[in-house]
Structures are given as C-alpha cells and as structure tokens.
C-alpha cells in the first residue's frame, strides 16, 4: 500500500500562549514545537497499515525548516520518506492554502490512503483534511476511532465518533481519514530508528516546484483574515460556599444555585 500522512507542528500544550505586540498573532519565541498530537495517531496508524500490507509510508509537511524535525521523528518511528514544502510564500496560509499546497504535492504521487489528524491543536479548525479530500476528489471520513482495511486493500470501514455513539462508515479507496484520539497508541521512536531516519530521503520543495502561484497560498491566497487575537475574558471571581459540615455546605450551594443563579 502507498500510504501518505500529512503532519504539522504545534506548540507543546503546556506552553503559555502569549499574544504578539501587534495583537494579530501568537508570540513564537520560547515555544517548544511538537508533532500535532492528532497527527501522531495518523503516523502510527500508517505504520500499522504498512506492517500489515507492506508498502511505503510518506510523510508530508508544509511550513518552516523546523518542521523537518517532526518529519524526521515520523521517519524514526518507521516511515519511509518525507516531503517538506518550505517557501516564504506560504506564511499566513489559511486551511484552504495549506490544503492547496498538500494537494499540489499529492497529485503527483501514487497513493491508496491519506491519513491526517482530526485538527491542529493550535487553530483548532480541523478542516485541512476534508478540504484536501475535496481538492483531490476522494471521499473522506473524519474523527476516526478505529480503521479496518479490507484484505484486498480496496475498501475501508472506519468507526467515526458522533454524538451519543459511533457510526461505522464504509468507503472505497483511495480515501482520506482524520484521526481521533483513541485510534491507537503511538510508538516511541527507537534509537536504531532515529539513526536510520537520518539516511531516509526528505525532499524539500518550493511553491514553484509544485506549479503553484504565490497568489494561491499564504496571506494573498487566504479567504480568512485575522482581525485580532485576544485573551479570554476572565471569569469573575466566584465565592467559596460557607458551611461547617458537608450538609451545610451542600444546603447553602443548593440555595445559591436555586435562588441566585436560578439554574436548579
């Protein structure tokens, strides 16, 4: 099977998010960058498919040079090759711009399945996968908890998390799926894996290499414009409910919820 995985980097979730002085972006100094956790489930699932069916896993990323590190980590986990699109023109791309870039890379590749994470833990949009599938004219199944590929690798059955339950959705391949937490437990890269990864091919492409115009990506190609980034409104300090005993505290809370908040 030819398996593709798209990944990005996000700030480590412990990072304190600071707003840049211009109020239009997040300050990026002192950020520890990690593979977007949802993309890690995609990488792991790809490796399991390779273990079962044979074939190759290609990791694709778009962004500054530092994304190379995350692609190498995926190679160290067991993927075979990487492609990074690194070009100043892509700065400021929205989801559509990123999907266009990925689509331009992928249209020249042979693939049976594409795996992405369900959303980036930075902007939390969660649509690059579905837009990419639309641009490639293939079906997509999002928020996948479990993936089964038929023996002849021609169809998939994906368990998709919905409100109140799970849907099992069938699709022919090629298709794109977006990974939800719980799909698998990603492996750690082993030391031999890390050493091997250094020799695995990692191609770097520019926009021109992909036949894209700068006007289709970056800020110029974006359909969404950021007006400002703000901190969340602070919740007003609440009150500690008085009481000498648990019963008293419970009674006071009940009264407050009933009479003051009026929600019970």
């Amino acid at each position, binding site marked *: 099977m030819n398996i593709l995985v798209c990944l990005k980097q996000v700030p480590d979730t412990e990072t304190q998010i600071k707003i840049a002085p211009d109020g239009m972006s997040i300050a990026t100094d002192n950020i520890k960058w990690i593979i977007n956790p949802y993309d890690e489930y995609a990488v792991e699932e790809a490796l399991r498919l390779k273990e079962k069916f044979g074939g190759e896993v290609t990791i694709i990323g778009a962004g500054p040079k530092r994304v190379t590190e995350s692609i190498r980590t995926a190679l160290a986990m067991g993927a075979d090759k990487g492609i990074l699109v690194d070009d100043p023109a892509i700065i400021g791309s929205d989801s559509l711009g990123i999907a266009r870039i990925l689509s331009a890379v992928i249209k020249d590749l042979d693939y049976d399945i594409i795996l992405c994470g369900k959303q980036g833990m930075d902007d939390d949009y969660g649509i690059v996968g579905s837009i990419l599938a639309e641009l490639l004219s293939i*079906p997509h199944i999002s928020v996948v908890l479990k993936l089964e590929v038929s023996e002849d690798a021609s169809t998939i059955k994906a368990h998709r998390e919905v409100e109140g339950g799970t849907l*099992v959705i069938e699709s022919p391949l090629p298709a794109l799926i977006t990974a939800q*937490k719980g799909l698998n437990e990603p492996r750690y890269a082993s030391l031999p894996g890390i050493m091997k990864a250094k020799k695995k091919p990692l191609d770097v492409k520019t926009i021109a290499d992909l036949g894209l115009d700068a006007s289709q990506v970056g800020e110029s190609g974006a359909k969404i414009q*950021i007006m*400002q980034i703000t901190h969340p409104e602070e919740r007003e300090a609440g009150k*500690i409910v008085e009481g000498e005993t648990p019963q008293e505290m419970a009674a006071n809370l009940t009264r407050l*919820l009933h009479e003051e908040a009026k929600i019970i």
Partner: protein
Amino acid sequence: MAQGIWIVAEQREGELRKISFELTSEARRLADQMGQSVTAILLGSNIKGKAPELGKYGADKVIVADDNRLATYTTDAYVSVIAQLAQSGEPAIILLGASVQGKDLSGRLAARLGVGMVQDCVAFSLENGNLVAKRPIYAGKAYATVTFKDSVPQIATARPNVLELNEPDGSKSAEVVDAEFSLDDSQLKTKVAEIIQEKGAKVDLTEAERIVSGGRGMKGPENYTILEELADIIDATVGASRSAVDSGWRPHSDQVGQTGKVVSPNLYIACGISGAIQHLAGMSTSKYIVAINKDPEAPIFQKADYGIVGDLFEVVPALTEEIKKIL
C-alpha cells in the same frame, strides 16, 4: 448580488436538534441588522412537517430537501445538496452548527464553493456587510476575531449551546418550499454500515445543558455512582477529566478537555478535578461552574462561580439530598 442569511438545520431521526433553533435565532438577529431574510435549509426524509418549527424562531423561508438518501447524514449527499442549493440560491452567509456533522461537512462545502469557512465560533457580528466571527484557539487560551476575504458566501459553524435562543413565536410562519437538486448515486461514495449507540443514551456531553464531572479525586471507577445519582436528579450527563480516563475509570467519550470534548453547559459541576489548563479548555464557556475539591489551592477555584472546599464523598451525596428537597 448575494443576499440573505442561510442556516443548515440539523435533524436526527426526524427530530430537529436544538442547534437548528440556535442558528435560526442568531441568523434572525444578523439578518435584521442587514435588512435581509433568513432561510433555513432542511435535509432529511419525510421531514417537511418539521419546517414550521424553524419559522417560530425567525426563519422567513425553509427550503426542504426531502429524499430517503438524506435520512441520515452522509458527507457526500449533504455536501452535494447544500452546495447545489447555495450555488442556485446565492446567500451572503451560511451558518451551520459546529456539531460532529457540521464540522465534517463545513470544510468540504467551503472548498466546493471556493470560499472561506470559520469553525466553532462563539460570537458573530457584522462589519461592512461582512461576517465577523470570534472563536477560541489554542484550546481557548486565546480568541481570534476573524473575517472573510474574497468569499461569497461566507460560511461559519457555531459552537452548540452558546448562541442565544429567541422566544419561539407561534404566530410566526415561514414559507416552505421544496428544494431543487439532483443526487447521483455514483457520487455517494461513503455509506453508513452500522450505527452503534452509546449505552445509557443520555444527552451527549457536547450538547448537555448540565454536566457533573469527576476527576482524579474520585479515586476509582466505582465511586462515579455518586456522580450518577446527582446527575440523575438534575438531568445531567456525567463527564470525566483526562486523568480519570487515562486511569481507565471512564471511557474516552466521557472526557472533557483539550483532547476530549468541548462542552458548553449552563451548569458544570467539577468534582475532584484540580482544574488543569487542558481541562478548562474543554469547559470554560460553561455558564456556571461549581467546584468541589478538598484542596483549597486547586486552580479550578479561580474559575468557579461557586466553590466548596470539602470531601466530595460527603458533599456530593449531601448535595443530591438537598437538591431533592427543592425539586
């Protein structure tokens, strides 16, 4: 010239979901500012009878796409029909719910129409006829206010349980029309093979108006019964922190937080939950937060409207008793 605000109503098993009325109410508010109309798009099978409900919340018109292939949501069918209707109807703005369905179809729909899409919005406004949307980023550690460029229509999804509902007005009625669309079976690649219901069929966390949630302080899965008893009498859904889920006490579908579900209830009661940023990310838009924790330094008390510093194993059952007295 693109005109009007459209909303995509959501139905499940023939019943309209609350998000449909939230969207209609918000669309009405925005449309009144623009002097334009509100149209609801309703997809389903034998669903036409539900259209008048949308009128009560402010829809001027309901376009009903009735087809047995639309009974249950599938990406391919819904994106195809909504895109066709948008191409012929030319709305200025389309609002959908940021539900599982909405989030699945919104990106694909926007790409098909070649326009921008803003996901999981908590507030809308207008500026020079353009939709302005506010949405959480970095799991709610910051908010982005965004608008659209070169996009007609402008598409956005709204977080459930956040937009204010209008008072339904029985005297208001909407014009109901049949949608014109074509659906080729060959376009429908994905199929629903099976529906697995969660045991206990309570309201899903993402739509629950009340949630009772337990964290590490619960000390074990068997203790969640006290939360379930409280939840039962106040009609709440039980949630859990990541710590509890990682310990195997509760299923992942119960997890509230950055890598779990984002919830927006009227009442969130956090029991034995310390209040890590990642947990807060999942429930910070709750209207009222109650925290019960024996550690007075627990960060959750900074965000709670009402806090009880005490032993949850005594406080929670006592709370259940006290609430029973007033119900």
